[in-house]
């Protein structure tokens, strides 16, 4: 039943996304701009002893795409909630977990598609990385998207207006971006910043994808990244499902 219900919910929102070509491409615009205008600045900088600068930058841009793309996923559900669509669905026997999963899978798939576009562009600009590493990178984007979209829906179901939602999301995503070393590796900075950044779960995902991009699969950063991503995902999906169970209560 969970699979059936998830497929129904996924189908409904996937059709809405496909109807809006603009939405499909718009999300990839920001990381693409970074790639085009920020990437060339780094080409000759010694960011890492073992990796080219594209191998450092692209993992960061991929997770940045996931971070911003998924964190705002909840916006649409505020409108749906005010229209009564959520209550109408909750009055049916549909699985509460499916109400969440159907939506976040749509989000994760959209972001994975945008991630592929990003990597293809990066390849044209000079990125060279092992295929397995690139695929691992997509998996991390998927997990991060599922997690953050779940949290975003959970938050959106507790607020009444989009005006209450936006500031909270900004207050979380911006520090997360700065403190996780998305743009430049944290090891380049002073020790206190590096220490602080270890309290941001996203940091471990970034390090893991950077390790994957240089073929360093059996490494500590990879282990920590997988653990952090799975833990974040479990907590977020649990919180999100709980909100669908008692939305508006």
């Amino acid at each position, binding site marked *: 039943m969970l699979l059936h219900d998830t497929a129904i919910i996924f189908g409904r929102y996937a059709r809405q996304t496909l109807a809006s070509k603009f939405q499909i491409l718009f999300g990839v615009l920001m990381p693409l701009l970074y790639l085009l205008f920020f990437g060339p600045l780094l080409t000759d900088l010694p960011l890492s002893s073992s990796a080219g600068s594209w191998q450092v930058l692209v993992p960061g841009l991929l997770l940045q795409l996931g971070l911003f793309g998924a964190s705002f996923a909840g916006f649409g559900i505020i409108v749906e909630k005010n*229209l009564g*669509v959520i*209550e*109408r*669905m909750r009055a049916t026997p549909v699985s509460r977990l499916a109400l969440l999963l159907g939506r976040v899978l749509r989000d994760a798939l959209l972001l994975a598609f945008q991630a592929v576009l990003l990597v293809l562009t990066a390849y044209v600009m000079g990125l060279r990385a092992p295929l397995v590493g690139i695929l691992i990178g997509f998996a991390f984007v998927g997990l991060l998207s599922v997690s953050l979209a779940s949290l975003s829906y959970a938050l959106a179901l507790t607020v009444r207006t989009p005006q209450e939602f936006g500031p909270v999301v900004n207050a979380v995503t911006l520090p997360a971006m700065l403190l996780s070393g998305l743009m430049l590796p944290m090891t380049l900075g002073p020790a206190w910043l590096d220490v602080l950044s270890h309290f941001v779960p996203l940091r471990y995902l970034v390090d893991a994808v950077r390790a994957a991009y240089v073929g360093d699969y059996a490494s500590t950063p990879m282990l920590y990244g997988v653990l952090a991503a799975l833990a974040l995902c479990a907590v977020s999906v649990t919180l999100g499902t709980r909100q669908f169970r008692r939305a508006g209560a």
Partner: protein
Amino acid sequence: MAIISTAGLARTFTTKRGTVEAVRGIDLTVEPGEILGFLGPNGAGKTTTLRMLTTLLPPTGGAATVAGHDLARDPAGVRRRIGYVAQSGGVDPNVSVREELVTQARLYRLGKTEAAARAEELARDLDLTGLLDRKCAALSGGQRRRLDIAMALTHRPEVLFLDEPTTGLDPAGRADLWDLVRRLRDAYGTTVFLTTHYLDEADALADRLVIVDRGVVVAEGTPGALKLRHGGSPDATLQDTFLAITGRTPAAPADPAPVAV
């Protein structure tokens, strides 16, 4: 045997400005095939009671059985047997009527072809056939309400809950809706639990009334019996009867637009 029975059903909300006792202990029973009018002024706790009976809101006190299933222990069982139309409806204006009906049927676990067939059938029954491929936004108020009800009837529920179903409709739309509710009961034996603050609606449509005020039941009976008991004679208006029971009229003359709660 009663199809709905509640005992001390209560709900308190905790808000920033303190606690609100929206429903303070409702005891009622509804018989199968009955049209029950749940009547009360704005803020009496009608919507809150309905949201509890439809499993959308957990009660903070009391218990209830709906269509043979305990509200607390078996909410999924309740959901399979009831239909619910919220005061503000529940369709997405940007989605087509057909898509809403088919998706709803799929959520009630109908197969693909069954769901498509059920959508056609509901559209025929509720006079929406020509509108299936329109966006919900393109429907009139009366058509929207019929769509909301069609969605709630997808799985042929034993009990249909309607929250202020005629608020915002013109007189012709209201008359149509009354006909529809009577037709449902006569053709399928559906039990209808509807809230209203319109006295004429309660009078014309309901077999029996439960009058609530400030979260409790203040009177209960057929419209005729209530008029006799509280209004003084069977010819008393329900308006006078209501005034005698609660000390005020159910809706202020300038009734504000319905607000979703």
